[in-house]
């Protein structure tokens, strides 16, 4: 997905990635999150992305005339460092994470809704406010000639 220069191919690969993630959520017994992943990400967000790609009529990204070897090498090195750092931390030291006993409450609609409307009621309401702000901002940005 990242290596491809064509934005449409990247978007299609990202949809595939979202579907695979939804299956992994199912394996982790987060059923509601799996459904939401397909609905919101693969459904709503990727349609928005594809629509914008279509609207802007994007072709292939042109190659740079100067390749920026130093920056690319440095960023690649830092990312690999980050990956290996956490990877070895995970290999060495998983004993700090001790798993509590007891059965798992599967992430169905019931348990998730109960947590969302009792313990996390305030974040839920703030999220709705955030969506409202995003809606107004989008309409403003799209309407006015900036």
């Amino acid at each position, binding site marked *: *997905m*990242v290596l491809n220069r064509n*934005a449409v191919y*990247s978007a299609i690969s*990202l949809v595939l*990635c*979202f579907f695979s*993630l939804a299956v*992994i*959520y199912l*394996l*982790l*017994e*987060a059923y*509601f*999150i799996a459904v*939401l*992943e397909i609905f*919101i*990400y693969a459904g709503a*967000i990727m349609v*928005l*992305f594809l629509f*914008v*790609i279509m*609207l*802007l009529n*994007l072709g292939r*990204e042109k190659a*740079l005339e100067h390749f920026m070897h130093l920056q*690319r090498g440095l*960023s*690649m090195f830092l*990312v690999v460092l*980050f*990956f290996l750092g956490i*990877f070895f931390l*995970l*290999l060495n030291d*998983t004993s700090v994470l001790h*798993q*509590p006993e*007891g*059965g*798992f*409450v599967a*992430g169905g609609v019931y348990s*998730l809704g109960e*947590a969302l409307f009792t*313990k*996390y009621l305030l*974040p839920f309401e703030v*999220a709705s406010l*955030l969506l409202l702000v995003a*809606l107004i*901002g989008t309409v403003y*940005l*799209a309407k006015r*000639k*900036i």
Partner: protein
Amino acid sequence: MVVPLEHVIVLSLTLFSTGVLGVLFRRNAITIFMSIELMLNAVNLALVGFSRYYNSVDGQVFVFLVMTLAAAEVAVGLAIIIALYRNRQTVNIDEINLMKN
């Protein structure tokens, strides 16, 4: 069968690194945006994995909130990209140097 936590974390790490590389290497604003979505998904995966590991549903509530945030962010970001394209006729971030000089 239970998926071990380590496998989930390694997959999440891989996805996150891929997203970071996409942000750093691509120059198309929309592809960079999609890489940011990939990073958000990696964090979601880690949250779900830990939620499964600790037998708690709290992590999935956070995933829910992150998805809300991602939806809002995409709407605003794509509106900004379209406004940018209208003014500059490009989405290549190398050519957008409004704040230079």
